[in-house]
């Protein structure tokens, strides 16, 4: 399937910023079942955009602007060709052994409640790791209500779990925290998803988790949808948690009241190669 993606992030500053520096993880790589056909980054102003790679193998751009800057828009746009691999990720850029992904991070720390939950929902399926992860996936999908209001990008897994509400980022953190507690290496994936209901305008990118399963390698689990990633999922960046895979991490000097607006458009592209 060929997927068209356009992701706009717009910042407006109440008073102009003197300088802005951002680290972008907005460029997907190729792996089995995912081929980037075209991709570009645009800015609405002059700035230095330096391409690089982080230690996890994500493609990065460092954006540096000198002000006064009253607004900034970062747009990425492109087309990606995908195939359904049942969530199994092969041929991707791997810089670390799976064992690294057992690290706890502040956002994915499992507190007592999460630990208990992790054991409860997987109690039937302790033997088989894959089965256990599916139990976890379904368990989280049904226990946590999707709600964009109560959490933000700094909300930790345990807080979201206590609220029983959150967005895909929170559900992914909860999944990761539980999996790691159960001894399964797990990581955060930032990307996009083509919706199956025909809605093409979205308010944000998507996030899900990947867990390491013997014999299969990394397998994706999308707890916000209760499914394994399909051909509608486009992987962009992976990390230990949101902070390692965030599409944009930024700092600014000066300027007041930052307002951020995100608009994502995802639809099936009409392939020019189609016969």
């Amino acid at each position: 399937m060929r997927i068209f993606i356009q992701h706009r992030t717009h910042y407006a500053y109440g008073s102009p910023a003197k300088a802005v520096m951002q680290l972008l993880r907005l460029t997907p790589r190729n792996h089995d079942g995912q081929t980037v056909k075209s991709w570009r980054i645009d800015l609405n102003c002059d700035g230095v955009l330096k391409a690089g790679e982080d230690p996890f193998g994500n493609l990065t751009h460092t954006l540096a602007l000198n002000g006064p800057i009253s607004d900034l828009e970062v747009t990425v746009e492109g087309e990606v060709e995908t195939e359904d691999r049942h969530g199994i990720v092969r041929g991707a850029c791997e810089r670390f052994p799976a064992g690294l992904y057992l690290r706890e991070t502040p956002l994915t720390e499992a507190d007592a409640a999460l630990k208990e939950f992790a054991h409860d929902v997987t109690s039937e399926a302790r033997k088989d790791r894959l089965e256990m992860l599916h139990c976890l996936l379904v368990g989280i999908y049904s226990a946590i209500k999707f709600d964009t209001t109560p959490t933000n990008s700094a909300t930790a897994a345990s807080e979201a779990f206590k609220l029983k509400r959150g967005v895909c980022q929170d559900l992914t953190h909860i999944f990761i925290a539980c999996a790691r507690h159960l001894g399964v290496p797990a990581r955060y994936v930032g990307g996009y998803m083509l919706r199956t209901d025909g809605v093409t305008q979205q308010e944000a990118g998507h996030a899900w988790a990947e867990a390491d399963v013997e014999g299969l390698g990394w397998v994706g689990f999308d707890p916000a949808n209760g499914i394994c990633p399909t051909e509608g999922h486009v992987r962009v960046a992976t990390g230990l948690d949101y902070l390692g895979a965030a599409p944009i991490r930024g700092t600014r000097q000066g300027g007041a009241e930052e307002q951020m607006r995100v608009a994502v458009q995802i639809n099936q592209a009409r392939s020019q190669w189609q016969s």
Partner: protein
Amino acid sequence: MSLDEMNAEDGSVREPYARVAQWLATVSPEQLERRRVEAELFYRRGGITFAVYGDAQGEERIIPYDIIPRILSTQEWSKLAAGLEQRVKALNAYLRDIYGPQDILKAGIVPPDLVWRNPAFRPEMCGVEAPHGIYVHIGGIDIVRVDEEEFYVLEDNARTPSGVSYMLGGREISIRLMPELFRSHRVAPIENYPNELLATLRSVAPRGTMSEPTIALLTPGIHNSAFYEHSFLADGMGVELVEGVDLFVRDDVVYMRTTEGPKRVDVIYRRIDDDFIDPLVFRPDSALGVPGLYGAYVAGNVTVANAMGTGAADDKVIYSYVPDFVRFYLGEKPILKNVQTWRCRDPEDLRYVLDHLAELVVKEVHGSGGYGMLVGPHATKDQRADFAERLKVHPENYIAQPTLALSTCPTFVSNGVAPRHVDLRPFVLTGADGVRIVPGGLTRVALRDGSLVVNSSQGGGTKDTWVIEC
């Protein structure tokens, strides 16, 4: 019985202490008290204070100072110095390895999860070349003695070890308040420490740095407990004392904002923690660091001393492998001994530890400052039972060591001169042109009778340390 560094067991005075013993026999407690008060005044007037974390008033306190010097002979020192150099070389080799080829994991010497799951390990440093291959430019190695022969390493401090201003302050007091005693010994100088530090930092400037490298000391600011030390060292080296807001990065080059415009910075001696160095890469809410500093480091345009991620070499489990590092990387026999360490993550060790809690000291792997530890012989039965529970839940968080009979030194306390337990923190400087160690270090003394905890936050004091020819 522990070793007393002045009075040998047979009642004789150990040679290095001969003159100190004579002197102690002639001074009255009143004279000692007067000097103690003067010493305290010296610290207070100089503002050589520290803030205690968790102290609501944010009160500035001074660390108690004991005016009776601690003496080491040059023979003792030269053996210790050789061991320190070897130890820090091994720590640097280990860091170079785990952030590079990871040979030690392949060789099966260190279990990989001790690296991967160590919170102080920074994946962000993997594959990043440290300028001149040095990670730990300033190391503080805590040393204890239990007998005449051996020095034991109690702990390695590879992050941002502090205390050097107390070492130098103590020397200033010795020279001012006890000139006769000081002159009667030939005490190896330490006042050149800021110069040695400067030379070390200069030597590690990124390759290709034109002319004189510009060096800056990065401090979290005046509210930090060690701010006095930061300003003291910056002054002593003649370098700028900067906060995060004074620096900025453009095109992967670090600049400081000066009245003459941006000035390029080549070497940053940072006294802020890894977490706060660069909000783009580490903690996003950090206001203490410099956005883009990590990128400048990766690009090879700035040296950060100590490098980020050095904490992966100094926790209390990794500690137990350092003698293996010496053998593996240097092919040498370790000069300094390690204290025997039981790793509670290992079920057999855990069983032993639980069975012998009353004899052992149990420490948190990532704890510091003497917090979160159990001194078995001094603990109550309830405390031990409580700790045993914690051990069973999170064995991987703990190690245990035998209760060491730390050596004692004569110390002036309320009821006169009495032996008190001491340790020693020498500061080891590693530059591109070699290792520098000023003779001695910071002697910390547990002022409470019988106490083994020397940390300043737990009622410890300091002493001047004299390395003398005898």
